[in-house]
């Protein structure tokens, strides 16, 4: 994994400074200590990553109450399975956010399946894709991410947005964008290459 050169968002900084006993907060160390049942380390991990996780579940699930539930599920899963985290193989932040995204997408699928059972009409699975991508761009707090998103082609940006912030599968993205599967896969990869290079992520 790359060295973390990610500037913290303003929210993160506020949280970090509130953790009194851990000035040099090392998230990997906190997660390792969490695996040993250290509840203070777990609390500090929540303080550091809670807003990132919750932002993601809010973005994906939209319903605030449901997002809270999923944020809670994510952190309980972190607590329960922290022993699986291997600091040799990745960073704690990545581990937690990948888990959060996966969990949020699972919740969307689960909710949609329940909704499909209840409804007799076709459930469209969320708002129109133009609304989704527009809102994502408007709400992006991170200037750098927004600037880098602006550097993508329309199809790259829509593909990345619908996938990551919409939680759609790539065949669903292809359907929404009226593009074929191969095109969507390629646009996702090309979009990620541009974003990675624009943000200076190295791996």
């Amino acid at each position, binding site marked *: 994994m790359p060295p973390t050169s990610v500037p913290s968002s303003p929210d993160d900084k506020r949280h970090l400074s509130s953790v009194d006993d851990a000035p040099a907060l090392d998230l990997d160390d906190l997660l390792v200590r969490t695996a040993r049942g250290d509840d203070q380390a777990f609390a500090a991990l929540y303080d550091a990553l809670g*807003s*990132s996780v919750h932002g*993601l579940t809010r973005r994906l699930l939209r319903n605030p109450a449901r997002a809270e539930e999923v944020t809670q599920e994510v952190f309980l899963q972190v607590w329960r399975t922290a022993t699986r985290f291997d600091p040799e193989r990745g960073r704690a932040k990545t581990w937690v956010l*990948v888990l959060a995204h996966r969990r949020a997408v699972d919740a969307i699928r689960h909710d949609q399946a329940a909704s499909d059972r209840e409804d007799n009409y076709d459930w469209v699975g969320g708002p129109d894709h133009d609304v989704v991508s527009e809102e994502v761009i408007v709400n992006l707090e991170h200037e750098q991410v927004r600037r880098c998103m602006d550097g993508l082609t329309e199809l790259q940006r829509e593909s990345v947005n619908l996938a990551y912030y919409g939680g759609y*599968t790539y065949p669903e993205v292809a359907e929404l964008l009226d593009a074929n599967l191969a095109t969507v*896969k390629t646009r996702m990869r090309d979009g*990620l290459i541009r974003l990675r290079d624009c943000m200076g992520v190295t791996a």
Partner: protein
Amino acid sequence: MTIDLHSLVGPYALDVLEPDERTEFEAHLDSCPTCREEVDGFIATAVRLGEAVAQDPPDALRARILSAAATTPQERPTVVPMRRKRPLRSRAVGLVAAAAMAVAAVGVTGYVLEHQQLQDYQAQQSDVEAVMTAADAQIADTELSGGGTMRLVHSSKLDAAVVTVSSLPTLSDRVYQLWTMREGVPTSAGLLENSDMTYVSDVDGADQMAVTVEPAGGSAKPTSLPIGTVAL
């Protein structure tokens, strides 16, 4: 599978693959260091997208999560993965060496926890050995559809079985789960890790053992079709 697996590198990093595709792609990643490198960079990029939409959770959520964690047991680490092919008599030595390593690795604070785990582990090992060495032990092997193999050793007399899987493709955030099947009704028999020996008691009346891929932490009921079954 006819599609070019490498073309899934973007969809994988953005987490938009179906579980079976993801499993297949992860197996591909294991054999492709170049893909691994690209995927790592893409995932780090996706994490930045996640951070960009950070939003403070409600204050009350913190207390709820911390108090829920306080009453939630944690998964135990795999202290000593056993090699399937190692002869039985060398295991005791391996266990002691591994115990020493485990203690050295975790230091004093982790010792009590690890010590308890070791005792549990040793208790389980005697069950495993009883089945492996039972006079009526029956052995059956099967290939799993996602790659890897499963071996079942079953003793009717002891009413128990030992399941070992090996060469399973590594999954991120998905797990392999073992099920005891009775006339099509599954009962969870725990999660599987490569080379672990999983002891399953009370197999009387069961007709099959099955393996499925489940979300992290396992499922109460299978959420996917088995990637392999063995008849008891």
